[in-house]
């Protein structure tokens, strides 16, 4: 109910629409809504495959959009993600701490800044949907590893595959960071339990291998078009700068954006989390998992991420590691809150609640203080212009439209050579220089402007006739490169430039175009598995002996240094 009270109004206000990536997800969803079995989308990059990005949240947005419209459908999927997070955190935390501490952890998940930051500022729908599904899968994974329950195996399996269908980065990195502490816990509990309930090391290994093999095979099948694309066209483009890779001490602005805001008051709790997590033996795997993820989330502040991740460091963004770190520490935080409340009652409860509210408020408000470029731009007039008088026979790009690039792409029939999906683009003018979307070229300095110049130089090749400019910074380049201003919109705040002699745009005969079979897989398996997951989790679970103990076992007088509590 708290999650509903906090997040439902914000989502009904459609606050995420101001974020960086929300329009990107809605754009993908709009394509699925119209071309469910054809993931080839001609609207960006002169044509690109949407199989370069796992589809589940966008596909559910598309399905719901048939009833609710795209914006509200997005908010609904995001809201489900938030609710799943609360449930997932409770179930995950209950593996480690008492039900009461798990309840506090679940309550805290409503207020964590990392969630607010990703939902309302970053707009990372896939990350914030995939992680909760993983969290819900982990208790089943634990039961399988610990007790060999086939029903748990089945539930863990479908949920893991469903989570993988939601986000690839969470699959590749997040799932490992979440699963390792669970494996360690299963091993510790199995080793230390009574004889009848012991799990031998070989049995544990067999169970791990079996779930990895079966789930891995299913994930390979469900995301087959994604893997085919990745293998045939690996991401070799020049890395694009992202401030989450900065050293947060040397670049304080990045530190505020990617450390202070996403962690909020949790920063104050970090010492207590480390102390309590290390003092209770059973929590140590979780603490170590949190610590490793936390360090990775610091980006370039420590040498760990650059050394461990190698080239991936220059491709990944690290705000999601901070998000995962936050989720991993919530069970310990719940335990810390229980102890604080038991000891200090209201004197602890009031400041904790206040800090939680302030943390959430800052993260939610951050998109207002640090808005994405062009967050308030209305693109209706531009879409109307592109849709009339045959202008949509040519391709276009925008300059200075920020995250409204996706919104415009949804509203116009015209196609663009620009786009926001960095991993999907194949045009050499876009991949060789290290700039992101052309519309934001100037923010990427030389790489971005080199990329823009290369694209303008090859305008004829792509039927690129129109440039819609909202930032006069680019005017000199267009003027000297042979473009003429031919129209203006919205009281001349938007100008339209044209190039003479450009041939109409032709469909690109790209090798990356998915086959019909791939489109069929893409349109059936991800959503199919999510439906299967919904059915399977409803199967009644065999009652297993709880691993955790009561709060009393965690209280100060019961703690024995280095001793096992549970």
């Amino acid at each position: 109910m708290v999650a509903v009270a906090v997040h439902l109004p914000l989502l009904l206000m459609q606050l995420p629409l101001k974020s960086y990536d929300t329009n990107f997800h809605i754009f993908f969803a709009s394509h699925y809504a119209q071309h469910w079995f054809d993931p080839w989308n001609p609207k960006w990059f002169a044509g690109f495959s949407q199989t370069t990005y796992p589809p589940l949240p966008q596909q559910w947005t598309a399905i719901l959009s048939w009833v609710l419209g795209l914006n509200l459908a997005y908010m609904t999927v995001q809201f489900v993600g938030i609710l799943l997070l609360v449930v997932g955190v409770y179930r995950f935390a209950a593996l480690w701490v008492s039900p009461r501490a798990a309840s506090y952890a679940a309550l805290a998940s409503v207020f964590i800044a990392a969630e607010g930051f990703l939902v309302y500022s970053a707009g990372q729908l896939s990350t914030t949907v995939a992680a909760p599904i993983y969290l819900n899968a982990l208790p089943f994974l634990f039961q399988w590893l610990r007790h060999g329950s086939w029903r748990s195996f089945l539930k863990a399996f479908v949920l893991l595959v469903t989570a993988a269908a939601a986000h690839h980065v969470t699959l590749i990195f997040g799932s490992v960071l979440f699963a390792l502490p669970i494996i360690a816990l299963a091993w510790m509990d199995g080793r230390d339990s009574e004889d009848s309930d012991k799990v031998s090391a070989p049995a544990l290994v067999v169970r791990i291998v079996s779930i990895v093999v079966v789930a891995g095979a299913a994930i390979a099948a469900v995301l087959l078009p994604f893997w085919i694309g990745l293998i045939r066209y690996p991401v070799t483009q020049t890395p694009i700068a992202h401030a989450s890779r900065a050293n947060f001490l040397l670049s304080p602005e990045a530190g505020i954006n990617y450390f202070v805001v996403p962690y909020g008051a949790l920063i104050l709790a970090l010492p207590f989390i480390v102390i309590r997590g290390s003092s209770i033996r059973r929590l140590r795997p979780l603490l170590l998992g949190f610590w490793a993820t936390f360090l990775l989330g610091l980006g370039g502040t420590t040498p760990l991420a650059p050394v461990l991740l190698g080239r991936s460091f220059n491709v990944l963004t690290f705000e999601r590691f901070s998000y995962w770190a936050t989720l991993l520490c919530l069970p310990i935080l719940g335990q810390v809150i229980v102890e604080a409340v038991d000891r200090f009652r209201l004197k602890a409860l009031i400041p904790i609640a206040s800090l939680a509210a302030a943390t959430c408020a800052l993260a939610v408000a951050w998109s207002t203080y640090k808005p994405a470029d062009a967050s308030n731009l209305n693109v209706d007039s531009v879409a109307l212009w592109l849709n009339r008088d045959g202008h949509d026979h040519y391709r276009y790009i925008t300059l200075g439209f920020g995250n409204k690039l996706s919104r415009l792409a949804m509203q116009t029939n015209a196609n663009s050579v620009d786009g926001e999906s960095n991993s999907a683009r194949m045009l050499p003018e876009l991949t060789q220089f290290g700039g992101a979307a052309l519309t934001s070229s100037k923010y990427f300095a030389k790489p971005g402007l080199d990329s823009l110049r290369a694209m303008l130089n090859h305008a004829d090749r792509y039927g690129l006739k129109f440039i819609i400019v909202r930032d006069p910074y680019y005017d000199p380049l267009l003027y000297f490169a042979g473009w003429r201003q031919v129209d203006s919109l919205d009281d001349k705040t938007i100008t339209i430039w044209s190039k003479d002699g450009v041939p109409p745009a032709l469909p690109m005969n790209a090798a990356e175009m998915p086959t019909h079979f791939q489109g069929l897989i893409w349109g059936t398996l991800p959503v199919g598995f999510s439906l299967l997951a919904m059915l399977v989790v409803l199967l009644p679970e065999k009652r297993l002996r709880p691993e955790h103990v009561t709060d009393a076992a965690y209280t100060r007088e019961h703690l024995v240094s280095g001793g096992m509590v549970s």
Partner: protein
Amino acid sequence: MSQGKLLATALAVTTGLLVTAGTLWPSAVAASYSGGKTEGILSSTSTPEAAVNDLTAQLKLHALAKAYSGLANKAEFSEADFERDLLGIGLSLRTYATLDSVEVRPLHQSNTDADLTMKMHWSSVVGNFDDTRDVHAVKVGNHWALNWPLKHESPVPPQVIPVNYLRWDVIYRGAGDDWGSQDVEAPHVRIVDMHPLSRAEGVVVMGELLNEDVVPAFVSVKATLVTKAGETLDSEGSFDMISHTLLPKQVTPFIIHFPGTDLSKISTIRMEPTSVLVAASADPVVEIENQQYQEGSGAAVTGQLTNQSGHTVNVSHVLTTFYDANGQVVWVGGQYIDRALQPQTPVDFRVPVPQDLAGKVKSERTVVSTYIQGNS
């Protein structure tokens, strides 16, 4: 110490050590967000080069106030002067340029002072430009600071400048004819010279285009390379290496680059000039003064541009055609002027020619394209 305390301590200490290491010796990627100083917070100005690096980092971050505060000779000029020197007066390429990199070359050093050359590579919307400064470093206590060689650029005093220039206006059909489907014949333009050249980086096609008409034209040139088998090898346009707006009887040079192509495989070059009638005026008049060709190492045409009009020209592009003894085009070069052309204020330009072609150059001709904000 208990295992728990030991673990907590180990985690805290390891975290501290890792953060310390990452801050003292940041990775190149992490350092790039803080101005590129890979020395991290250990960075000091203990050498003249380090002082230049420190200044470079501040300039990359656009922290001009901090950069100014670290100068040894800051008492000689104000922070506003320093900003004007770097960003220029009025809107120009410098206004939004970002410092990409700096080459430092020591010239001389003693225990108390040093001379260095700083070649700053700036990135602007139309391309890169360089700014070379000879800086004098002095030792102040145990660190080095720079004497910034300020280039004074004074605002133009208030005055009245009479102008008398030709201007062509166009009356279009109406609002529906807004993007090029004109109901008038395109101005007559003609390529008067075209000459392909094989270079190490590929083929270049250069020449000159004449507006034969009595009305202004907005022109572009596209070249298509056709192989001996009749296949199209590549097609490129002149992009910004042409003066797009041509007044009647005006000639512009053009050069088109085909990187990675081999001239021996080409049988035909198909040239496609395009022209559209546009409104135009002879204003602003930019006079080219003291133009001269400097031979030898670093051969180039140098001179000065003087804006004779009353407007500030925000961006200007100099295009020079180099001819051989037979009057054939040898090369076409260009340079953007990074500072705005204030009325009646001369600004230097320099258009280099490739060293291997420099010996063939017997004459040259320079034209200037201008951009004035709001007049496009």
